[in-house]
């Protein structure tokens, strides 16, 4: 990851963060656009979750990681506190690998 990429991401993010505070007293975003923006966020996050769960590069990641994520997902649905979700997912995956399932 070269520094210019980090700088680009940081600068772009910062500009987007500044837009609201700088303009909120003058402009307001139409609710429909706000709604599309929140849907786009969900779409990106879920696409990212799916690919980072199931794939390593272009190939299937093996069973240990998806199983761990599944355990975390079930706990998340049951509204278990956030730290527990993360640790349970990692622990499940680690134990499966310890047992020889990659």
């Amino acid at each position, binding site marked *: *990851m*070269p*520094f*210019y*990429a*980090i700088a680009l*991401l940081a600068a*772009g*993010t910062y500009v*987007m*963060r*500044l*837009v*609201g*505070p*700088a*303009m*909120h007293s003058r402009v*307001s*975003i139409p*609710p*429909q656009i*706000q*709604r599309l*923006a*929140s*849907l*786009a966020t*969900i*779409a*990106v*996050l*879920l696409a*990212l*979750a*799916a*690919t*980072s*769960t*199931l*794939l390593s*590069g*272009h190939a299937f990641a093996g069973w*240990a*990681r998806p199983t761990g*994520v599944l355990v*975390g997902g079930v706990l*998340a649905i049951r*509204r278990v*506190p*956030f*730290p527990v*979700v*993360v640790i*349970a*997912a*990692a622990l499940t*995956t*680690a134990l499966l690998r*310890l047992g020889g399932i990659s």
Partner: protein
Amino acid sequence: MDVRSLWRTLDRDTRRGIALVCVADAVVGVSFGAITIGGGLAVWVPVAMSLLVFAGGAQFAAIGVVLAGGSPLAGVATGLILNARHIPFGFAVGDVLGGPWWKRGLGAHVMIDESVAFTQRQTDQRRRRAAFWACGISLFVVWNAAVVAGSIVGSALGDTDALGLDAAFPAVLLALIMPAMSDAHTRLVGLAAAAIALLAAPVLPAGFPVLLAVASVALAARAPRTEIPPTQPLEKAR
């Protein structure tokens, strides 16, 4: 900025909520540092990213693209799309970011899912300000310290896969998205996005499948527009 007086302005539940989120994000920060180092990148990379970008989802996404062999620019594009939600966030909490320019500038940098979520739960203007700054500053400190710790641990451990750390990030994402998934329409868009990304992954370079998945939002154009309250920050806080 007197952090102690900010804390005193807040009620007990909010303070507890912010503390819990700090613990959760510390775990995630450690895994970010360790995964990045475990993937073979230099220690300054996760540390600089966390200080300058300060947005966990985008950091994981950009690093994920690069570690999967994608180009750094594809990583940047994925991260920027994820971070576009800060535009509506900024309008939602713009009222608490008054004062001199340097204060507004600092406040914008600590505008993240969590600080916006905690701010939106308060109605009183003074408490909104206190919630935003207390959560933003605490998380900035905790997140960056955790990433440094993770980078050090990561260099010592070597194989982060044995610890299952590669499962931590997707689990974080699921936990983040879950509250929004109670809406049937959002679920449809989300599932379509996941399907698009998975179908595209074998043929497109890393990073692009996730960008392509934004097309699933087109499904929203056909559906009745009611259910979702606008600018609902994704909530980590429980």
